[in-house]
């Protein structure tokens, strides 16, 4: 069973590397934000798997919970920050529509 | 009454998280739960309404159908992502449509159900008009058929 957990976490690490491509080369800022969120999700699962391998789940579960909370708050904060700036691509249709006060 | 319920929920949560049932941890929990209840006790239960019990029972029967829809549509998105002819299959578009839901909580439940069901994301709610982004034609047709809206209306007895 430990071997299964080990290979699962290896696959997850490989997927994190694939996500890192989007973080580095993503065309817009929002691409990077959602990629970092996806990496955080995978890290939460990897932390739990690591706890299973080491046999110390009761310790790793707290770390994973704190990591999930921080990941959520970081994503929300980054989204809020770049929403206030409103300057990634000005002049688009949706930008103008919302500026006129639809909501 | 609301404050006492909030305190009890917080304290049970604390004890589960602490995992040690001795006097020291319990007293720490009581102190911190009292502080949190004093500062933000009115966040958890907004208002007390009649007929909450029926809504809770109907909501619990709504959850399995929602989970079934989530799994079904997740397979749809996975198939889209993995198929080699992806660019012909997807057709992302923004659509607007009106709903007949009245109260705030039913609107929020409907919006969260749309977002949880893969293939569609609620972008904005203006009055009773929803702005939804869908990724391909079948999921949009599925949403516009109004099946989910009827179920949500049934949960909050607005049909």
């Amino acid at each position, binding site marked *: 069973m430990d071997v299964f957990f080990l290979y699962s976490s290896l696959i997850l690490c490989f997927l994190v590397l694939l996500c890192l491509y989007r973080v580095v080369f993503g065309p817009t800022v929002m691409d990077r934000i959602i990629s970092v*969120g996806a990496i955080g999700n995978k890290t939460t699962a990897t932390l739990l798997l690591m706890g299973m391998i080491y046999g110390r789940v009761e310790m790793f579960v707290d770390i994973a919970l704190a990591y999930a909370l921080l990941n959520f708050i970081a994503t929300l904060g980054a989204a*809020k920050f*770049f929403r206030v700036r409103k300057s990634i691509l000005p002049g688009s249709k949706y930008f103008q529509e919302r500026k006129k006060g639809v909501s | 009454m609301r404050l006492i319920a909030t305190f009890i929920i917080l304290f049970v949560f604390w004890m589960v998280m602490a995992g040690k049932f001795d006097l020291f941890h319990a007293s720490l929990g009581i102190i911190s739960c009292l502080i949190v209840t004093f500062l933000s006790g009115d966040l958890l239960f907004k208002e007390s309404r009649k007929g909450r019990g029926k809504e809770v029972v109907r909501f619990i029967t709504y959850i399995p159908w929602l989970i079934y829809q989530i799994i079904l549509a997740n397979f749809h998105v*996975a198939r889209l*992502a993995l198929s080699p002819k992806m660019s012909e299959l997807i057709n*992302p578009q923004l659509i607007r449509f009106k709903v007949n839901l009245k109260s705030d909580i039913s609107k929020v439940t409907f919006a969260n159900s749309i977002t949880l069901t*893969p293939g569609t994301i609620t972008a904005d709610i203006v009055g009773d008009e929803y702005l939804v*982004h869908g990724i391909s034609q079948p999921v949009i047709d599925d949403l516009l058929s109004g099946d989910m809206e009827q179920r949500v209306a049934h949960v909050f007895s607005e049909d």
Partner: protein
Amino acid sequence: MEIVTIIFVSGGLFFFFAATIGLLRFPDFYARMHATGKGDTLGGFLIVLGLAVYNLFHGGHGGFDLASILTSVKIIFIAVFIFLANPTATHAVFKAGLDSGVVPWTKEGSR
């Protein structure tokens, strides 16, 4: 019970994999969010649930004592949190993208 864990974790890995491939392949930011926001939610939920089942029967000092049940309850808290927080974060980032004016990709080209 190990077979249940293997099925859950494998299913979670499959959905994670599909989400990552979708993140790399979809044409614009909004479509990518469909892949990550949803595939990651179900994938993480399945993996965490599978580990909770495994821990309930094999954790602690041989399973089914107070320590293993408490740890499983904590793991299920993580699963519920993932299920609540991920759609909320997706919604927030989507609205931020719409507000900052990233033009959605459509099949007919820009409208």
